[in-house]
């Protein structure tokens, strides 16, 4: 088969050129690694903010934080975790894995890829720099008129930082789409693409069309704050509800941006560790596309209590999203059903994801019920929902993916025992931290407040939640130790340590520059499986489990 006319990775001449290499690299794998490490650093920063808040909330009364600092922290915690951790992490995993999975040599626009990454630390400096300028104590949703009347210049830094991160996401989305549409290897038809590629495709479409709308809103807010504009100021003829429309038109597709790549990661792992093909490949693709499309029809379910939106429409479409999401759950369960489950850490995390994301998803269906939503608006029930979908959802999938692809990225397998310790700490910690929030929210405890009355009986549940938060923090320590010791050890994982299916396992670990010296023939969505089991692919194609057979471009 084809080879690239490029020599293998050259040795580094000196320490300075090693630094320069990482600063100027356009290799999608190195950029992916930069994304992942930056995002993990931000995960720690955002986590420390969460610990500070949970420490304050462990007991009624003010012991640890001032109210203003608390407001700054909960705002910055959300912004950090969403824009500086989960999004760059998913982009990083996609950057590393997607070109490998479609048999490409790199992303379509390598230099734009590098630009997209370097906008992230720039945005992070602006956003975290807000702490030096009075912070941005307005929540990650930045609602007008609060954002317009709060003088702190940290808010302006936050707005500018988000514009940079938005630009990064748009450039990344363009790059992913061009890569997926144009750089697939011969034989890699759309309906043979691995599920991570499909979810990255749909995520990129969401980013491409949702992110610019946020940018327009951020610009309007910036003009209102700094140049006397009146977009969201009723005294000048503007409309504060307009901000909510613009923000959530971005904000709801954004939550699928955070979770669809997680679906993709889990869908890569479940078949490999069940020793079966993914059940219902086509249904899964259709469900992913449906979730993406429906994501643009439900933004106002975040605005039920404004009284300014047509409730039945947005409620109905919110319920409708449960259908394709339910399809995915059945895909995963049916894939595992009757399979030879191999409970290595990636599958543990994937199963943890399936179990706990279900709780978060059901919370979402609860919140689609208009009267229920009116009751729990702005309470800890919503906080619980968001954390069950983002921690038990995105974070579990991220760790599943990191354990799964670490051998491909570095050549060394992470320690399984430490991985399992980490999983159980995180699994227990997540539930202890976030389940009590359901009960607190139903009981009326409002979010974004530094204190609560001692006579409401909320102290015990809050203490429990704080203990859970520290368990989550503790779970990160074995992971850091695991990465540290693994990287110091031998890189002997081999090309295909999990006996997996997709193309990234057909090259070396880590892959060379431009990825493949030789590509196997691609006749199904499991080319590496076909390579290892030449007889089985025929039966597999005949069973119709994949899309093998017909070339559909």
């Amino acid at each position, binding site marked *: 088969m084809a080879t690239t006319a490029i020599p293998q990775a050259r040795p580094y001449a000196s320490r300075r050129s090693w630094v320069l290499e990482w600063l100027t690299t356009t290799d999608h794998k190195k950029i992916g690694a930069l994304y992942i490490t930056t995002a993990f650093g931000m995960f720690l920063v955002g986590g420390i903010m969460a610990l500070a808040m949970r420490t304050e909330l462990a007991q009624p009364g003010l012991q640890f934080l001032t109210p203003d600092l608390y407001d700054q922290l909960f705002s910055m915690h959300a912004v950090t975790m969403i824009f500086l951790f989960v999004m760059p992490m998913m982009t990083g995993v996609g950057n590393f894995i997607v070109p490998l999975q479609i048999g490409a040599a790199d992303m379509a626009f390598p230099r734009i890829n590098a630009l997209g990454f370097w906008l992230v630390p720039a945005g992070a400096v602006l956003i975290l720099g807000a702490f030096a300028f009075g912070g941005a104590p307005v929540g990650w949703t930045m609602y007008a008129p609060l954002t317009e009347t709060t003088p702190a210049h940290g808010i302006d830094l936050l707005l500018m930082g988000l514009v940079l991160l938005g630009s990064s996401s748009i450039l990344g989305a363009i790059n992913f789409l061009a890569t997926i549409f*144009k750089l697939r290897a011969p034989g890699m038809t759309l309906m043979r693409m691995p599920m991570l590629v499909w979810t990255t495709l749909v995520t990129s479409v969401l980013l491409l069309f949702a992110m*610019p709308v946020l940018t327009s809103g951020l610009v309007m807010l910036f003009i209102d704050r700094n140049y006397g504009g009146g977009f969201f100021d009723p005294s000048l003829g503007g409309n504060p509800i307009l901000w909510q429309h613009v923000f959530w038109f971005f904000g709801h597709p954004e939550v699928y941006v955070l979770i669809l790549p997680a679906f993709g990661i889990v869908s890569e792992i479940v078949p490999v560790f069940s020793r079966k093909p993914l059940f219902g490949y086509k249904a899964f693709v259709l469900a992913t596309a449906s979730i993406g499309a429906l994501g643009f029809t439900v933004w106002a379910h975040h605005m039920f209590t404004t009284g300014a939106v047509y409730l039945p429409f947005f409620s109905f479409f919110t319920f409708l999203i449960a259908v394709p999401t339910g399809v995915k759950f059945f895909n995963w369960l049916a894939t595992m059903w009757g399979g030879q489950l191999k409970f290595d850490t990636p599958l543990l995390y994937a199963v943890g994801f399936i179990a706990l994301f279900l709780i978060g998803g059901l919370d979402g269906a609860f919140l689609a019920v208009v009267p229920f939503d009116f009751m729990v608006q702005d309470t800890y029930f919503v906080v619980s929902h968001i954390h069950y979908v983002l921690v038990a959802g995105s974070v579990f999938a991220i760790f599943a993916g990191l354990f799964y692809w670490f051998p491909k990225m570095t050549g060394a397998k992470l320690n399984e025992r430490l991985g399992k310790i980490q999983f159980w700490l995180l699994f227990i910690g997540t539930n202890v931290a976030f389940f009590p929030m359901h009960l607190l929210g139903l009981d009326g405890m409002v979010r974004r407040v530094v204190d609560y009355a001692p006579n409401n009986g909320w102290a015990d549940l809050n203490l429990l939640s704080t203990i859970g938060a520290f368990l989550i923090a503790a779970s990160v320590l074995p992971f850091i130790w695991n990465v540290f010791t693994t990287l110091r050890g031998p890189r002997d994982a081999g090309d295909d340590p999990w006996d997996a299916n997709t193309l990234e396992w057909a090259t070396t670990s880590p892959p060379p520059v431009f990825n493949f010296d030789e590509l196997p023939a691609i006749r199904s969505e499991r080319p590496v499986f076909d390579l290892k089991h030449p007889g089985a692919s025929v039966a597999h194609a005949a069973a119709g489990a994949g899309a093998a057979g017909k070339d559909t471009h």
Partner: protein
Amino acid sequence: MTASDSALVTHGEDAVTTGHGMSHADRGIDTALLGMMLFIGSEVMFFGGLFAAYFNIRATAPIWPPEGIDFIQFFPVPIIATAILLSSSVSMQWALSRIAAGDRTGLIRGLAVTLVLGLTFLGLQAFDYYGLLTDHHFGIDSAIYGTLFYTMTGFHGAHVFGGVVGISVILLRAKQGQFSAKHHVAVEAVSAYWHFVDVVWIALFTTIYLLK
């Protein structure tokens, strides 16, 4: 297939091929042009946000346009600027058709004309702003109408400026003879962007001066 017949890939180029020799990159739309089309898609959504703001506020306002801004008229400056921008789309398309026919001199002439027209549009916009600011004391802080007017036309102007920069770059490259009948994807991409900026202006002109 051997190394010799597969496409050479080098890092640091604008776009890479798969290196498979035969790939999806060889068929259909050029990868770089696809990138520009996707970027234009995101720009449509950016202006969509601004237009949504305009129509949301227009729909909830008791009187529209607000009283006392009857000096916002399409005659004379805006209509002249519109004619100039529309002509620049024609000259851009002409430049593209020239290089597609292998005529490098025609490309340079077409781009030069487009560049001058684009700069003229920006000059007229500045002139229009100057008149509104000095004669009518109408600024971005003049209540919601001023905010909308300057934000929407200002961001459009910024995009025209971006197009002018793009045209300047391909004009310089054209002078160095970098384009041919077969290889001129950068001209196609800038041309697509320039037409997009023109379409946004038509929507803006219609919204601000005709629908009111």
